[in-house]
């Protein structure tokens, strides 16, 4: 089963209940604006935030839980990994703090405990444990207008397309998260363009595949370079031998 969250921007009233619910759920501290924060409300203590765009439009920002997560593919120790329901989880105990996940995320989601001596990466984990126990994430459970809803990904996709079709002119005919970077578990339908949520809009390629070719050619390059070097050595040795008519001395370092 692959679960998902569908957020309908036209329904959001910007009440921040989801943000508060998330903070209650994970006992997050009061947020303090810091020098290192992106100006989007997300922080090590805010795993979801609501952006305000003129209109007024309120856009909830959170981890997109990509179907093929770049962060999980990038993490050298597998501290970030995808669970069977599609949530991208983080394990404190494995992390070594390289922050490659933060570099690799196309949505710029993971946040860091910059002010801690023992810092961890922080982001939405789709309330994995609650979902596993048959519940739904804290944020979707409190939404008063059902702007953000939880369910099976296929069903929510169908629902999104249904809403777009049934209300012609209300939405932009695009489900954000359906195909981007290989598809995400957090979907949006909207009446304004949401491309600003991503560093580069309409990127269809799944990011883990970008490094696949290079990683697959690693053994080839390793053995190949060894072979080339040995071959080169053998040829040159032989040439020198023929030239001098005697075996070259054992080289000194």
């Amino acid at each position, binding site marked *: 089963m692959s679960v998902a969250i569908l957020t309908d921007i036209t329904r959001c009233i910007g*009440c*921040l*209940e989801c943000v*508060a619910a998330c903070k209650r759920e994970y006992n997050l*501290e*009061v*947020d*303090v*604006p*810091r020098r*290192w*924060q*992106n*100006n989007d*409300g*997300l*922080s090590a203590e805010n795993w979801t935030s609501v952006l*305000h765009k003129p209109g007024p439009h309120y856009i909830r920002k959170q981890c997109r839980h990509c179907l093929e997560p770049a962060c999980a*593919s*990038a993490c*050298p*120790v*597998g501290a970030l990994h995808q669970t069977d329901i599609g949530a991208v989880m983080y394990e404190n105990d*494995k*992390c*070594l*703090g*390289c*922050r*490659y996940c933060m*570099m690799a995320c*196309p949505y710029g989601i*993971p946040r*860091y405990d*910059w*002010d*801690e001596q023992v*810092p*961890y990466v922080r982001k939405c984990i789709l309330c994995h444990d609650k979902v596993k126990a048959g519940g739904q994430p804290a944020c979707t459970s409190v939404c008063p207008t059902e702007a953000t809803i939880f369910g099976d990904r296929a069903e929510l996709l169908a629902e999104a397309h249904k809403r777009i079709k049934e209300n012609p002119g209300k939405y932009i005919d695009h489900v954000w998260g359906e195909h981007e970077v290989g598809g995400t578990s957090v979907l949006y339908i909207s009446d304004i363009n949401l491309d600003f949520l991503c*560093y*580069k809009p309409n*990127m269809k390629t799944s*990011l*883990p595949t970008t*490094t696949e070719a*290079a*990683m697959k050619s*690693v053994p080839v*390059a*390793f053995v190949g*370079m*060894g072979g080339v*070097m*040995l071959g080169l*050595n053998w040829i*040159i040795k032989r040439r020198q031998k023929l030239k001098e008519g005697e075996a*070259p001395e054992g*080289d*000194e*370092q």
Partner: protein
Amino acid sequence: MNRVHVVKTILWALVGLGLAVAISRFAFGLGATTNLTDATPWGLWIGFDVMAGVALAAGGFVITAVFYMMRRKEFHPMVRPAVLTAFLGYVAVVFSLLVDLGLPWNIWHMMIYWNPHSPLFEVGWCVMLYTTVLLLEFSPVPLESTSRYAKIRTFLMKFRFPLVLLGIMLSTLHQSSLGSLFLIMPFKLHPLWYTKILPILFFISAVGLGLMMVSFESLVSGWIYRKKPETHLVAKLGKAAVWVLGVFLIVRFVDLGIAGKLGLIFAGSWESFLFVAEILIMAVIPMIIFANPATRNRVGWQWAGSFMVVFGAVFNRINVGGLTMVSTTGDAYFPSWMEFAISFGVVSFMILIFLFAIEKFHIWEEQPRELEADPHAKPRFSRAGEVWLGAPAVAGRTKYSFAFVLALAIGFAIMPGKKLHSGGIENVPVEAARGGDTLYVDGNRDGYGVAFKHEFHIDTLGGDQSCVRCHHMNMPMDFASGCFNCHSQMYQAVDAFKHDWHASPSGGNVACNECHAEGENRTAASAKSCESCHTDLIPAGATIEIESYMAPAYTDAMHDMCIGCHREVNQQRAELPEQKDLALCGTCHTTAGPEYLRADVRERLKRPEFNRVVMPGLSLEDGK
């Protein structure tokens, strides 16, 4: 002081400064020492120390390939310095990583938790393996100084060829995999640098850089020890570098051409400028220098050419590592001085080890001389020890240790005194964002939460229509105005009790015992309470107990220590202006002259906004 002493003294000072910063980095965390942000999680320590450090270590595998594999015997004098440089380069990378990683004590996790999909996993393993290989490759050199280790040495020498081969193979992987790291960021890296063949480009440029790094290092260390430069060897390396850099340029431009990105070079953007500078410095100009026999054999041109390749390649790594991502992330990162201090400190430490090794071991064909202290020097008594124990074994010992200690002390002194830490906030779950009465907010943005009476503020500011007064009013994305937007004076340090001021009217310091109990230490604890003189200080029936010897600052006072009673008094005196002016001492202390206030407050009093709450588009005074 001779040249060696000057260089080493400076290096020791840099090491001292770096050490001081390293201590503060582990004591206070990354946020307090670096300028890194959530949008720029990799900075100088990755871009320069790791990316460029590995690139600079390329000389080791290039020279061993040339010497052992291609059997070019004439490069023998350069092999040992190059292998040593490579080894120290990797040690520097490990040091920098230990500082940069958030949880460096977990670095060994790479060995047990595998994620073979991750390029960083490959990088990590290459660093571990290649550092070990380099250590084994180099260790016969220090071991040859005593016959005691002859057996180990012979044993190691048996494996030299396979070790060298393994080293070259690992380097190939490692140099290229640094490029693979950035393949996963097609969205961040500028298209002029992002290409699927980034690993190949990294490898080719590493070969060219390796050749020139060996040349540059030979020229510099020769200059330090006033050794005759190895001009003919550098010229040969330069000739080889022309070919390698040529291949690099062809691959680079053909790749750009196929992808149809050549037009971007002339876009006139920040990135196109970086690109042109990088190509010119790293490849084109050095190629011209080393292709021309007239300039190739001249020491001055060799300095210029090799330095340009080294600088250009480091520049390239820094470009890929972050400089060309700035326009995407919109986060202009510039390293803090502390980041520079660590980088320079690590590099300096490695150079010192290099110089030490050159003096102690047989790294050059002839070991540099005149570094021992002169045994016939006239006795010079140390001012501190006042005794002469003979010439010290290391001539510059006193100078180096002095520079080191002084720099370390300076580092401690200029470190930010307060740590950037939100430790003041209790772990209180936030209340519901709306509808609740008392919120626990950090309205001051100072890291400390206060109880905020939301409903009370709604009522006072005008009921249902007043949300907009605080919410969504200032910066976009900022959900509520800070307390200070209305309570504009809360940051003024109001010393409710000013000792100097109390002392002077009561007769200067001769009257200490009027307030402080005699025979005890003169602290707040031994002083009389305020209300023993100011008998009307605490109104009768006040509900809040005030420890009167504490001097409440304005912020404390406003957060319900004083304001309740003051408001009552305010209502009793109808002639007084609105309550917001309670902040002015002169509201009540009508007789106090202007010198009553501190100078900076006096200056601020003159400013027009002082008595008015200024908000964008709104003013409390005219009540719009």
